[in-house]
Structures are given as C-alpha cells and as structure tokens.
C-alpha cells in the first residue's frame, strides 16, 4: 500500500502518478489522505488499482475512471464519477449534484444521499444510491441502471431514453415521458445483482421500475406542449 498525503503532494503530481500506473505495475493498493475537499482527486485512472480516499472530496472526484476501484471515505462534491467508463466507485457519505453524469460504464455506489441531477444523461453506467436523490435525476438517461433505495425528488427521468430506473421509496414526481413500467423477471435479476454488488440490504421485489414511454423520441407536433 502506498499512501499519498495531499497536504504534502500536489494534486497534479498525484493524478500523474496514478495515471502512470499500468496493468503490469506492481503497486495496486493506494491510499490518499487529507483530501480536504480538493477538486479532481483521482481523475482519469486507467488501471485496475485499489484506491481509498480518506476524507471528503470537492468537484469531479474519480472522473473518467476506467477499471479502478475507488472508495471515498467521506462525501463527494459536484460531478463525482463524471463520465466513468468502467470500474467501481463507492462514496461512503453523500454525493453532491450530477453524480455519475454521462457515465458510460462501471458501478457508482453512493451510501448516503445524492443531490439533484444524479445520473443526468447516463449512457450505460450503473448507479446505486442507498439514500435519497434530488430533482431532475436521470434526465435524458440513455442506458444503464439507476437504483434508489430511498426517495426521489421532482421530475425523475425527464425526457428519458432507455435507462432503467428502480426506486424503493417515494417518487415525488415523474418527468416528461417517464412512466412506471412492469417489473419482469429479467429486471428483478438485474436489480438484485446490482443490490448485491453494492452491499445494499434490500430485496428487488420491494422496488418499482420506471422508464421511457417513448413518446418524445422524435419530434411530433402533437407533443409540442411537452417540450
């Protein structure tokens, strides 16, 4: 295990060092201490590293992650795990707005609450939030799964494409073109697998599924009022 203290090492040096680690490098275990809310901690990683961040982070932590398994022992600021490609990111505390935005793959687990716009424009990422999420989450979500054990804010899944939304608690309101859908066995399997992988103590049968009514895909003059 190599420990990097962000009060002694610069953020640029840290990210360069982590990005230089290749699949053949020996050092897989990393620990970052004293992040003190710094921006862009551990961005652009592209090897299967095991990384712990001991404290809360600022904007854009773990952005563009590929392959790495990153755990933040604290809360994360806006844009955590933006555009993740693969790997796994776990936030032990809360996440601020647009967590997992535009993510294309991998798993983001938020043990606390996520604020507004969680999973906005998600493109294949799986996001599991153990607490609640804020308004406009999964806006224009294209693919992937957003799982919420708690409640959601307003306008869940507004203008959604093919992302799947699973919610156990209350949905404050659904966005345009987002509807409740039948939970079939294939959905239960996907959901239970995500719950298990994110250490969520929950049964897939307790959830409801939401997704696109597919009425806003193409412009239709009759839908003008919905835009």
């Amino acid at each position, binding site marked *: 295990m190599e420990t990097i203290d962000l009060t002694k090492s610069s953020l640029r040096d840290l990210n360069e060092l982590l990005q230089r680690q290749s699949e053949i490098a020996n050092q897989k275990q990393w620990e970052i201490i004293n992040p*003190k*809310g710094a921006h862009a901690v551990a961005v652009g990683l592209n090897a299967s590293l095991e990384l712990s961040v001991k404290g809360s982070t*600022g904007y854009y932590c773990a952005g563009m992650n590929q392959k790495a398994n990153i755990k933040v022992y604290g809360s994360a600021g806006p844009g955590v795990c933006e555009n993740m490609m693969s790997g796994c990111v776990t936030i032990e*505390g809360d996440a601020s*707005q647009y967590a997992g935005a535009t993510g294309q793959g991998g798993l983001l687990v938020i043990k606390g609450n996520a604020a*507004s716009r969680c999973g906005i424009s998600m493109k294949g990422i799986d996001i599991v939030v153990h607490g609640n999420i*804020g*308004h406009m989450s999964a806006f224009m979500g294209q693919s992937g799964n957003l799982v919420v054990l708690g409640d959601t804010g307003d306008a869940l899944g507004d203008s959604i494409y093919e992302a799947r939304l699973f919610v156990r608690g209350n949905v404050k309101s659904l966005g345009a073109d987002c509807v409740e859908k039948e939970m079939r066995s294939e959905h239960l399997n996907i959901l239970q697998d995500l719950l298990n992988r994110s250490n969520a103590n929950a049964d897939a049968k307790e959830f409801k599924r939401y997704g696109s009514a597919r009425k806003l895909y193409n412009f239709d003059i009759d839908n003008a009022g919905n835009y």
Partner: protein
Amino acid sequence: MCGIVGLFLKDKSLETALGEMLTQMLITMSDRGPDSAGIAIYKNPTNSFTKITVQSSQPQIDFKNIKTELDNFSNQKLEIITIDTHAIITIETKYLNNIKEILTTSFHNIRIMSIGDSIEIYKEVGLPETVANRFDISKMSGSHGIGHTRMATESAVTTMGAHPFSTGNDQCLVHNGSLSNHNSLRRKLLKEGIKCETDNDTEVAAAYLTYKMNDGYNLGDALKAGITELDGFYTFLVGTKSGFGVLRDPIACKPAVLAETEQYVAFGSEYRALVNLPNIDIAKVWEPEPATVYFWEH
C-alpha cells in the same frame, strides 16, 4: 461563479477567533471569486448607540472632515475608527437620522456600507487575501459573520458592486448566482420607498428582504416569500443582528454546504472552505435542499 462563506457561533468562547476563521474560509474561496471580496461581521452590539460603516476613496481627507462636521453637530465627541478605506462611526441612536442626512448631503464621496447596532461591512476590489489583510479581518471578533468572493457577472467590478449588500439596519446579503428579474423588482421596490444604490442584481434581493422584514416578516418568512418573487439562480446567505439564513433557488445549481456542531453553524460554497474549522470531522455536514429556508438565531 462566486464564493460564499459564513459562520454563526453558538459557543461564545470562539468569538475572539471569528475573524481568523472567516478570513481562512474566505481565502480558500479565492478561485471562485478573485475580483473583489467583502465581509460583514456582527460584533459588540450596543443599546443606545448605532454604528455606521462608511467608505471613501480619499479616506484621509473625508474621515477627518466627517469628524469635524459631526463633532459640531452633536457637541459630543464621536468615535470614528478608520480602517483603510472604511470608517466605523459610532453615534447615539437618537441622532441617526440627522447624521445620515449630513453624511449623504455634505459628503458626496463617501458611501454608507451599513448601519446597525452590531453590523460592520468591509468590502473592496482585489484578491480576497489582499482585501482581508487591508482590513485586518483576522483580528476581529464577533458573534457571526458572512463573507463573499466575487466573480462579477451582473454589474461592474467596483467597491459598491462587491458583496455583502446592506439595505436595512443590521441586515446584509451575499449571493452566488444571477437574478433575471432584478430591474422590474428594483422599480417595484422604489415605488414602495426602497431605493437601491447600484445596478447590481444582488442589492435588489437584499432590498426585497428588507422590504418584507419592514412589513413584519421574520427572516425565514421573508426568504420564503423570495422563492416566488425572485427569478434566477441564487444561493443566498443572509445576516441579521441575531442570526443568519440560507436559501437556494429551486433549480439549485449553485453549490452550498452547511456544517453544524455544538459550537457553530458554518456555510461554504464548497466543503474545502470548512476543512480547517474546529471538529469539522465530527460535524453534521450536509447540502441544503433547494427552495428550502434554513436559519439560525441567537
């Protein structure tokens, strides 16, 4: 983008460190707002005396002349403490209206920053660290204070465009965001007898809250009314003589973090503004909900 910080102390033993803590928080927010900075600090409230904070671009001349003129008026020695471009004039409250009249009619080069029993406002153009050092903010004590680092969007980079804005006694407001209906609201407030001094959008929000509080609303209810009448993006931090309040617009794209311990409530645009506060590791830290009013009072 702008940066906001605030500290409301529950534990009186921290009061002597208020300026030091706020200064550190303010400097941390420099890259959110490098063009100007300001601090409102609430300290030493007095019953029969009122403090007027004034600013001048030629302080040596103006503040001396103010002292001469006001000494003649009241036959009493007034206390004027000069701090860089600002001065704190302490007067007997019964003379407030007369002295305001003298200041506004005879001294066209000075600007009134705040009036109140306990509020003092210091703001200038420049990097937050430079501004804080000019006024020696770190040596100040007080019960609560709010600070702002500005990246201007809605009006020019001037001393008067810097935050906090004070439009009522012991009230002030700082803002991250931009309001879109400030011109129409400014005209509406003028009809109600509330005049804004600048073209700045934030001053209109401050004046709106003053208008509501003059109408009998408490801070919390005034902020609630603002949710329907103020259009645009905002995270506000508002100070009054007894406390401070937070409000974010319903879209809530401007960041905000609150932290609370038994000793204090702290606000920062980002968590990194709060990291050096005592016991922050065990504080309750959370992001305020959109369109929800939070306020604390002594």
